[in-house]
């Protein structure tokens, strides 16, 4: 990145640490200085206690959410890539279907919740479907963009060497589109996390979102913040796993 002066490694590590400690110190000081009730703002120590002591509740709830999230995410990614390839090859299907996809894409997916609840109830299927729809679109968009960006010379070369359409797709088109597709998958991770939280907040039956929604209703503020910590850690960890996969799979770009 141009325009950024090189900082010493020491400061690169020290400054974020100092900032983190500052934030926690301010957070700890506010309830004491203003004499706030823990329901309004529990201190970091109280939240930290909940994170550990109630891990036997929070962790299984997180795993429950992770299961639905994983299934929805996997199907959404597969569907997005699959439909992307299909739409890339057939102009008539693309022209017929694309306007519908745009409308669904720009619609906040939360609106489908009442309908899905009516049709499928508050169980796992409903959550998987919400996660799936949210993951699907960025992957589809980026698959289409990636396939469109493949150099025609490469395709012509591969065709002239006698490669079939399938071989060209697997060996030339998809690898060339891979950086774009993986960028879409990374966007999909963020969307999938929004999806599972949204689904569980709106039908609080199981999972981490339901837990914090119900904790909020019983004014257990420390518990709510602890739940957010779990979601944040899981989201950030998942994102960086996919970031590492992306860097590995498209090593020629780096």
């Amino acid at each position, binding site marked *: *990145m*141009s*325009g*950024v002066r090189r*900082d010493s490694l020491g400061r*690169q590590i020290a*400054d*974020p640490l100092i*900032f983190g400690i500052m934030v926690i110190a301010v957070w700890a000081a506010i309830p004491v200085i203003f004499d706030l009730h823990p329901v*309004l703002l529990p201190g970091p120590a109280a939240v930290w206690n909940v994170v550990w002591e109630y891990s036997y509740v929070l962790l299984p709830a997180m795993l429950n959410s992770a299961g639905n999230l994983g299934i929805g995410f996997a199907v959404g990614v597969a569907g997005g890539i699959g439909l992307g390839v299909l739409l890339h090859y057939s*102009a008539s*299907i*693309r*022209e*017929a*279907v*694309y*306007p*519908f996809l*745009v*409308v669904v894409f*720009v*619609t*906040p997916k*939360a*609106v489908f*919740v*009442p*309908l899905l609840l*009516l049709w499928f109830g508050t169980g796992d299927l409903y959550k998987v479907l919400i996660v799936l729809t949210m993951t699907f*679109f*960025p992957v589809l*968009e*980026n698959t*289409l*963009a990636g396939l*469109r960006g493949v150099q025609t010379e490469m395709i012509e070369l591969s065709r002239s060497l006698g490669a079939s359409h399938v071989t060209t797709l697997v060996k030339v088109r998809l690898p060339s589109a891979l950086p*774009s597709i993986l*960028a*879409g998958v990374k966007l999909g*991770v*963020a969307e999938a*996390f*929004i999806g599972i*939280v*949204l689904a569980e*907040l*709106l039908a609080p039956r199981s999972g981490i*979102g339901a837990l*914090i*929604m119900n904790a*909020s209703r019983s*004014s257990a503020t420390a518990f*709510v913040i602890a*739940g*957010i910590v779990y979601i944040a850690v899981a*989201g*950030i960890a*998942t*994102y960086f796993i996919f970031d590492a996969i992306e860097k590995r799979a498209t090593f020629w770009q780096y």
Partner: protein
Amino acid sequence: MAMTDTSVKAPPARQADLAARRRGLLAVVIGKAPFLGLLAVLLIVWELVPRLADIHQIVLPPFSRVANQLLSNIPMYVVATGQTFSLVLVGFVAGAVFGFLSAVAIFYSSFFRRAVYPYLFAFRIVPKLAFLPLFLLWFGTGATTKVVLAATAIFFLVLVQVLLGLYGIDDEFIEFGRSLKMRETEIFRRIRLPAAMPSMMVGLKMGVTYALTNVIVAEMVVAHTGLGILLVDGRYRMRTYEVLAAIVVVSLAGLAVYVAAAYVERKTTSWHYSE
């Protein structure tokens, strides 16, 4: 960021589009034949299947029932859309302004740049919707919670995108400005800001959809107003046609927002897209 690009149509299709426009309305209709055909087929299937297969109203009301609900309650939907969008707008403006100012402050402070940057990138991934239960405790079930939730989503997106834009500027432009004896305020206004614009617009465009989502979810959880309550109400009363009508309204609203955002982006960063 390909997913936010509006030029999703394949270039040949767009050329065909332009050519069709020149040939008049009939040609446009013919050009859109695959889409219009599919739309007609879907609407007919939607109308006939519930009637012929004797599917209960609760599961899937026929299309005409939904259309009727929509057309006979236009004022109600306009009011609800207005309620939701006024909250989205307030949150959007607050979040964008605050995000932009924070980005500039972070940009000019070397400590904060080093200290905050890693957290921002991590925090971008955390769904802001997870803060809804906390905001409910802090701000209650009124408008404040919804505005804050919308603003939070915009804030982080704008903050990150503006910083990315400001850091992405080629050093040569800044050198050029300095060689013309521009002061830093002038460099900021005439070089840095325009250069950061495309990146910021991406953030605003994504952000407005997130803000709409967050407000609607908040409305579905607690509210007594807006589009969210129409959706929830229809479900509780087992009136699926009301739910479907509300979905249509939100889709149209989402489409309007998207088109408007794309238009603003084109206008403010026209030089960026010069083809």
